[in-house]
């Protein structure tokens, strides 16, 4: 039988990065096809190519859909052919009603006037199909995330969907909501809707998927068929992470000095939903000269953990203790955290780390202005000296320290953020995705800087979604999932398989 969708040798290059390298996959009519892979493996890029977010011509390879070559110029193009993608972040308008959302941009109207009777009637039908009994006039913001997800699917059905793509649909859902969603997927399959699901939760995939395609580093690794092959989680995990450690990491003498920072029973609630725990009962420690990693998938709560410790910059009802060199410290705001010897290098340097419109110099001194001032008066000559010093020692490539940081490359911007935090004189640095979005050469430089910090006796906590990086850099790795620490691995014990199976095992056990 001819497949509904066939993607042949798809390659997609961004400046400096090859996101997709010869990916092929084929989806049969009426099946549920799972695409799995690590963060950054290229799953989302592949789906964006398919749905026309990256229009035809910006990628290499061919897409055959419904028996003919498809060259989608935009999402509208692919939607017209019945390909609907539901993104991880829901795209509903919270203040509009369910009915308004279902037909947004697709209104049932005559000459611009909406036919509300017909809209309401069809909304009822669609809601019934996804198993919702809410009023069509209910505002979307009043619904829980689970129901919102179902409304998204109803919206897809309203557009006569033939191929439904779900990008991590259960990531934000509770267990019962997830189960209901999977059930709906099977029902849709029975009614003939072909589906592609992207997910990290292998148990869910095993439950619904007919075919599984594993993608790693932008390339297809394997395709498994539920009917023919024996699918085990071990096999999927091995295919997901089985790359060799191609990247090199500079050597560092491993040594652990006296205890620097200890965090005990850290518990944080979600800032908007006080009944939800973002972080639960997390304890960890860092010693002098140690590089400690925190591994986990996106949404595991790693950034939230770091920011809640760093002067309660995230969350509410924060509980737990932090001790620096054995002494309890209070970290009620960022200045107290800085005073206690902490620094937090954010994962989102453009919106949280830098003032893009300001110069390198002004960004570097921002967290410790008093060190370049006397009695509140800035000494700009001293400030320039400091910035110059960092420009040389960190090898920030810019015409001068007066250059605006918005004109620097990602790697150089990251060095500016690191300089800012080094100038604040910390004992423990929490680095959140320190090499995200920077090129290979700059990555190597950042690794070297981390080793220098360790040699100076500072403690480094490194959060990263790139497992090879953690394995190459860290003395110990904590594995985090869904707001909890799943366990701790020494450098010797840690491997991509052991980390991934710790995460996956938990997903299994919560079912």
């Amino acid at each position, binding site marked *: 039988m001819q497949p509904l969708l066939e993607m042949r040798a798809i390659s997609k290059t961004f400046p400096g990065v090859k996101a997709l390298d010869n990916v092929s996959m084929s989806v049969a009519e009426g099946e549920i096809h799972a695409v799995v892979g690590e963060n950054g493996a290229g799953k989302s890029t592949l789906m964006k190519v398919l749905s026309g977010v990256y229009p035809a011509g910006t990628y290499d390879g061919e897409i055959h859909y419904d028996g003919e070559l498809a060259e989608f110029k935009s999402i509208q193009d692919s939607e017209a052919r019945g390909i609907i993608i539901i993104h991880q972040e829901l795209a509903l308008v919270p203040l509009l009603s369910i009915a308004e959302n279902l037909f947004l941009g697709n209104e049932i109207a005559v000459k611009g006037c909406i036919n509300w009777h017909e809209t309401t009637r069809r909304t009822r039908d669609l809601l019934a199909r996804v198993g919702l009994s809410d009023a069509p006039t209910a505002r979307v913001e009043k619904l829980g995330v689970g129901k919102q997800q179902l409304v998204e699917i109803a919206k897809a059905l309203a557009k006569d969907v033939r191929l439904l793509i779900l990008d991590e649909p259960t990531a934000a859902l509770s267990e019962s909501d997830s189960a209901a969603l999977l059930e709906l997927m099977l029902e849709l399959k029975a009614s003939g809707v072909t589906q592609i699901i992207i997910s990290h939760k292998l148990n869910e995939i095993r439950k619904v998927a007919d075919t599984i395609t594993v993608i790693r580093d932008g390339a297809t690794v394997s395709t498994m068929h539920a009917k023919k092959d024996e699918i085990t989680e071990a096999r999927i995990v091995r295919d997901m992470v089985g790359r060799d450690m191609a990247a090199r990491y500079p050597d560092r003498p491993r040594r652990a000095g006296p205890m620097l920072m200890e965090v005990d029973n850290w518990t944080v609630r979600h800032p908007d939903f006080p009944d939800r725990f973002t972080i639960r009962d997390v304890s960890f420690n860092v010693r002098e000269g140690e590089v400690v990693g925190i591994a986990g998938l996106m949404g595991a709560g790693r950034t939230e953990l770091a920011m809640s410790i760093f002067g309660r910059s995230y969350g509410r009802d924060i509980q737990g203790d932090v001790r620096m060199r054995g002494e309890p410290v209070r970290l009620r705001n960022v200045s107290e955290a800085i005073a206690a010897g902490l620094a937090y290098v954010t994962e989102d340097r453009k919106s949280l780390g830098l003032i893009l419109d300001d110069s390198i110099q002004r960004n570097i001194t*921002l967290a410790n202005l008093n060190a370049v*001032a006397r009695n509140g*008066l800035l000494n700009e000559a001293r400030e320039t000296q400091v910035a110059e010093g960092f420009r040389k020692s960190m090898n920030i490539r810019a015409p*001068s320290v007066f250059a605006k940081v918005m004109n620097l490359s990602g790697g150089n911007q990251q060095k500016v953020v690191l300089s800012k935090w080094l100038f604040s004189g910390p004992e423990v640095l929490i680095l959140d995705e320190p090499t995200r979005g920077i090129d290979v050469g700059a990555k190597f430089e950042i690794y070297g800087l981390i080793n220098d910090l360790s040699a100076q006796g500072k403690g480094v906590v490194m959060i990263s979604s790139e497992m090879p990086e953690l394995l190459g850099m860290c003395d110990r790795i904590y594995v985090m999932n869904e707001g909890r620490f799943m366990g701790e691995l020494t450098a010797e014990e840690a491997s991509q398989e052991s980390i991934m199976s710790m995460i996956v095992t938990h997903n299994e056990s919560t079912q």
Partner: protein
Amino acid sequence: MSDTTQTATTGTNMKTYLVNHLREYGLLLALIAVMVFFQITTNGTLLRPVNITNLLLQNSYIIIMALGMLIVIVAGHIDLSVGSVMGFVGALAAVLIVSMGMPLLPAVVICLITGGVIGAVQGYWIAYWQIPSFIVTLAGMLVFRGLSLWLLQGQSIGPFPREFQVIATGFVADPFPESWGMGLAALFGARAINVLAIVTGIVAAGAIVTLGLRKRASNRQYGTEEEPLTFFVVRNTVVAVALIFITYKLASFRGLPNVLLTMGVLTIIYAFLTENTVIGRQIYAVGGNEKAAKLSGIKTERLTFLAFTNMGVLAAAAGLVFAARLNTATPKAGFALELDVIAAAFIGGASMSGGVGKIVGAVVGAFLMGVLNNGMSLMGIGIDYQQMIKGLVLLAAVIFDVYNKSKRV
């Protein structure tokens, strides 16, 4: 051969420098162009000593408030209540001094504190409750407009005692011997010359040039982007000559107005505060990227709160000057003035999104608006056209900014 390359690089340097700093030069050029235009169309009335003095008095309260407004805008906010607060404090001063007969000093202190408290209350909601400043100060605008009506019972109260009027209409006494002034007067063929005014002008011009030279020297030492020498010389000459010219004109009338002194001192203080202190730098950081500033340990809420408190005090000071100048407090005082103040800051180069703007820019912006007002009134242009022209000037200045920015990046 090498000579031509040299000139070529200097040429491009000058060009890129001009493109990057077009805004600052443009503002100065616009002010000069507008002054020359009105000087011609009013047959020289614009730059008569008495008119220059008037121009300063008329715009003093706008400039005083523009200082605070610039800080508020740099911090990423807006204050719509300043006109009303100014009117309210003027009314309060009239009630305290004229109706209740309170001595001047305590009355002035009470007025300034009241302004500070008003600013603090508005700043509290904006900073600690994250209520948009537009809403809070829009409410404040209505509340204080109403309060001054209530306080004055819809009447005007005045006149103020002479000592109070001096705040706005007085002149600084000339400490130099009278014979010096007579001598200078003879030299220039004028009736009388106020030596203090001339000396102040020369000293100020000298100070600006000296500071400019020192900055240049230190820039060279640290390799900062350098203003091409031609620009530096031309700009400083223009500014110095203009200063001396204006003070000479003032000297041949009644000397330095008290208000000019207040304005000058405040401008210097705030320019220093914004450019050379930790707190000033932190305000720019809050406006530039509040989240990044907060994660760098800056107490963003407190700075926002202080910016509004400061605005309140300055609005009160402007209210006192305004009441003293009119010699009466009326319920209409300060009506729609907030728009002139905000316009001054934007014409002066402040950015609506925060983090950008200079004190001197706001002052020049206020003067530009002032000269437009004054010149058009002298020409006998109706208030209808005046409003339209001022509106278009504001729009043009901001469009120029946006266009300039999009071209540069």
